[in-house]
């Protein structure tokens, strides 16, 4: 069932589902974009994650995230931002045809949105990647089978001002814990790729502030 999502049929299905959002959001300006690389590691479908360098300044230093970053003036659209950043951070060149579509954007901070771009990268050998040591400390892949197991899924309730506000997903037992915006984007991807199997837990009237 999981291997179907990497097949041509699965790809067509996903592209079709994302087509509307992609057309709407592609050219809209956004502060940043990340690439969600759906790859196949040793024949197993997996998502590729990076561990941001602890030497970076800013709120997300040392966190697990997808390759991506802030938009450059030279970028034509958010897809370009995601692909360029992936090339710079990992040395991985993803041609634009491999992009399947754009997932729901998220607010990192008020007025700063992050757009996730889903791409099918195909078979990938992690050793062949050349991560940039200034930006990326580690690259790892988590199989979709691992992410879909209930024991690896968790959630956290967040409050604010003494009241419960929202729930965010957490993915456990990998080399590193996946939380925050990255976990939310992973949830979007899993909802798309394995609709019957994955139970989403993102909840709450307000979107998370990251």
């Amino acid at each position, binding site marked *: 069932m999981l291997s179907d999502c990497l097949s041509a049929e699965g790809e067509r299905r996903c592209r079709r589902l994302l087509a509307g959002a992609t057309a709407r959001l592609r050219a809209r300006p956004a502060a940043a974009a990340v690439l969600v690389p759906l790859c196949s590691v040793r024949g197993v479908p997996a998502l590729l994650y990076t561990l941001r360098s602890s030497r970076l*300044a800013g709120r997300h230093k040392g966190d697990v995230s997808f390759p991506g970053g802030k938009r450059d003036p030279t970028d034509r659209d958010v897809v370009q931002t995601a692909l360029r950043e992936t090339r710079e951070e990992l040395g991985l060149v993803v041609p634009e045809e491999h992009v399947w579509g754009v997932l729901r954007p998220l607010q990192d901070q008020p007025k700063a949105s992050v757009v996730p771009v889903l791409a099918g990268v195909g078979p990938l050998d992690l050793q062949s990647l050349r991560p940039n040591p200034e930006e990326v400390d580690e690259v790892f892949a988590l199989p979709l089978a691992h992410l879909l197991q209930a024991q690896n899924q968790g959630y*956290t*309730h*967040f*409050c604010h001002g*003494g009241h419960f*506000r929202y729930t965010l997903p957490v993915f456990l037992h990998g080399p590193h814990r996946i939380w925050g915006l990255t976990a939310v984007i992973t949830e979007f991807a899993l909802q798309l790729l394995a609709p019957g199997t994955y139970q989403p837990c993102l909840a709450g009237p307000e979107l998370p502030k990251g």
Partner: protein
Amino acid sequence: MAAMVLAATRLLRGSSSWGRSRLRFGTPAYRRFSSGGAYPNIPLSSPLPGVPKPVFATVDGQEKFETKITTLDNGLRVASQNKFGQFCTVGILINSGSRYEAKYLSGIAHFLEKLAFSSTDRFGSKDEILLTLEKHGGICDCQTSRDTTMYAVSADSKGLETVVGLLADVVLHPQLTDEEIEMTRMAVQFELEDLNMRPDPEPLLTEMIHEAAYRENTVGLHRFCPTENIAKINREVLYSYLRNYYTPDRMVLAGVGVEHERLVECARKHLLGAHPAWGSEAAVQVDRSVAQYTGGIAKLERDMSNVSLGPAPFPELTHIMIGLESCSFLEADFIPFAVLNMMMGGGGSFSAGGPGKGMFTRLYLNVLNRHHWMYNATSYHHSYEDTGLLCIHASADPRQVREMVEIITREFVLTAGTVDVVELERAKTQLMSMLMMNLEARPVIFEDVGRQVLATRSRKLPHELCALIRDVKPEDIKRVASKMLRGKPAVAALGDLTDLPTYEHVQAALSSKDGRLPRMYRLFR
């Protein structure tokens, strides 16, 4: 000549009975009891007549009693550790605390702690409970922390049946009358005032560092009831919480100094099939949130120039606490973190003494002994089932806050450097002896048994823990310290904060090689 004079004076002085008994010391050993000649010559190798035969504890170097665990049909776990002695400690530990209050009013756990051992279905008031316990020489207490609530009774072993019945009643059938809740409101208010008034800032700082490290989730939620919620918490709110969290599968009945079969029998009688006061509907919304470490800063500007409660003045101090994520107590890395915490050690400057006093932990040697103006440098390690926090508390005069922060960040960065073998062995020995010494006390054994069975369904015996501690090597310390330093710091600050470095500077200092704060060029210091 001199000897003769001495002998003469002795004889002269000793012309009374003193002299006579002195002469008597020369004769063979023949002691008379002071009462006279009733019992001549009782040797110590045979028992005294008319005295009951004593029962001695034997020690042969092996732990004779092991921790036995049984799970009842409703999910309740019963764990016991037998021990020589007339008294026993029995209690119920529950997986409930402030970390589960996300969807409830904050402060419920605090209220429940104050309301424990009050009136129940069978006991009309707290006094009745205390009277019942007095018949068995018993005392009772309730303690809540962020993730566990513990009701405990220490009493004579013969009263085990009564004690378990009492505990079951107190936990499952509390009446929570309006009068008691009103008294609790006053008690909570008083505790909050005391928290803010006392010169020792440690509980307040612990609250703040958790708030900073786990922003708005699980263990970062308020452990003490916020003022605005005191009036809002009432019986319905408490029952709605108890319905979901005081369920048998979240409870452990632990006993020390009792026989396992007896305890299980009492548990079956009082806790199996009991209908709690809040109704027996199934628990609906149990919060299984994973604690999420976020890092961050929590500041509280406060005038600390006049905190002394008595006539003697207290110096004005600014307190900071800097913490980093460690690991949960379920992971293998927990032991190296505990050794690291012991190695950092520290305390108040009053205890530091100076070189030669014998305080050899890093925060004493490198911080308190070298900087006389630091009042305090102590290391703490808080650990929960899914996360942990290692933090260092420091306090100094407000004008030296920047230097103080730099010293602490330097100490943090040095943890990932070389660890001297002697220093490590000392820390390991200190940790093992602290563990063994504490586990000689029955209430501590009770808490250990209860908490371990609650978290892991089994218990690691002390000698197993000591073996794990002995296995820690310098590479382990370096590895866990490097892992710790990768994460974002949590900073809590209390007092006059004008010179406090920004959070970004603290973060930069902890990521740098030497732990120094980024240089700031200011015209006037």
